[in-house]
């Protein structure tokens, strides 16, 4: 009965995840999906790679390019729909304001988001040559769907449903500079645009 396993020995057991199935089956290599519209944010870690883009040196006459810092937190236990509300709340605010709002928000996602923002601010000052840590604002902030775990939810009469244990990602982009002024769109502007659209129409096959 004693089988001699050649090769790496004990490391073999550790390496093959299927011998003793763990709780998290998705730790193995992600499947290659063949359809076109796979989630653009997760296929390759593109959001992290955006921090690697290097621009050529600016000429002396050009206006100073504002620094952009991309950061994300992957696969944490929260719902993407619930996180979306917080993400849109934070969009467009300056970083101090955003952190303050999230600190006093009761939702679970607010704690994760605050960590991400603080980390991104720290990264900006240390690695991306941002001068003042308060001189940043949140340009983009989105939530994404992570890989779900599926479990059984027991119903009556022997029926069952498949319950999703939801995980999500949070993406944020900080830009250097004061936050852009929010332009209030009045009803007069809307009316003006409507009238311009009417005037722009081309009528074909007419006299």
């Amino acid at each position, binding site marked *: 009965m004693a*089988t*001699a*396993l050649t090769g790496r020995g004990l490391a073999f057991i550790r390496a093959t995840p299927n011998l003793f199935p763990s709780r998290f089956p998705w730790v193995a290599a992600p499947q290659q999906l063949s359809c076109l519209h796979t989630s653009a944010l997760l296929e390759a870690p593109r959001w992290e790679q955006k921090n690697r883009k290097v621009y050529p*040196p600016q000429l002396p006459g050009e206006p*100073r*390019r504002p620094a952009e810092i991309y950061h994300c937190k992957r696969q944490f236990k929260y719902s993407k729909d619930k996180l979306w509300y917080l993400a849109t709340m934070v969009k467009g605010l300056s970083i101090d304001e955003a952190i303050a709002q999230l600190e006093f928000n009761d939702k679970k996602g607010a704690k994760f988001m605050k960590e991400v923002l603080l980390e991104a601010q720290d990264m900006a000052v240390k690695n991306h040559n941002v001068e003042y840590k308060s001189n940043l604002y949140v340009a983009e902030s989105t939530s994404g769907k992570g890989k779900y775990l599926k479990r059984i939810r*027991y119903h009556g009469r022997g*029926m069952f449903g498949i*319950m999703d244990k939801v995980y999500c990602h949070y993406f944020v982009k900080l830009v250097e500079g004061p936050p852009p002024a929010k332009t209030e769109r009045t009803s007069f502007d809307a009316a003006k645009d409507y009238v311009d659209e009417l005037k722009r129409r081309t009528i074909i096959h007419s006299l």
Partner: protein
Amino acid sequence: MALHMRRTLLSLHRATSSSLKPPEPLDTRCPAPLLLTVRTKKRYFIPPRVSLKGRMDGNPEAKARAAGIVFRQEYVERPINIACTAGVFDPYIPPEGDARLSTLSKEGIKQRTEQIRQSAASQLAIRKIKEQDPEFSTKTFAEKAQEIFIEAHNALTNFNKERLHFLVTERCYPEITRGNRYKTVRWKFLESLEPPRVVHARCPDMVSKGNLYGQVTVRMHSKQTLAIYDRFGRLMMGDEDLPKDVLEYLIIERHLMNPYGSWRLHGKIVPSWAPAKDPVIKTVSIPGPELKPWEEFDAENYEVPKPAAVQWYK
């Protein structure tokens, strides 16, 4: 089909304590409908049952060993080639005021005519180097060292990793390239103000006696321009059009025992009396003094601590 489905489901939930009443036949309760809608679609995916029982207790290794599986002895070995020393042995201490005095004054001439023959250890080291490498000569070596220096820095600006590894030792490589990955460096060597000179030499041996490495220090006085741009193309430090006089002490090393070894830049010596570098074009916050809860920070009388003037070699 539905009955089979139900049966499999019931077997699934046998462990749970849910009451399993047999399904009541519909006839006794209400009249049988004409159409009995049954769920006939097969569920392709039933998620696996997760039980915490057998997971955490006992490690799989002990279980495998108990089961009788024998593993071969694991050898975790890898040969490492050490091609350079870890630091600078017996660094050269440059005399105070080097390159500050003009060559026409008496002190200046004395400094300039300081020949390497003064130091006996250096002479010994050079003799050892000449044993291994017969083409070595202090007169031509300085020029070669300067060429290596210029080529290494040019490779650094283009970030040509392979070329850089040829010209710079493994110890020097991370120091030269740290933080430069996402930055653009523009460096130009304009001219050499004084001919480079060999000032110091040592021949340490690492690990085993006889494994000789030669370290030669070369003094260079030259004009260079340096400008560093950050990831977004903004100027971080320096100026492209402003040439600066730079006095440098370079350490060039070679693994003498290795017939294919080559002279490579190993480090630089920054003397303790070197003038401070130009500041970075941005405001940096320095950590303030540690205060107790009842103390207040006195901004007017606070003196920013200056680093001690120590010679350091990179």
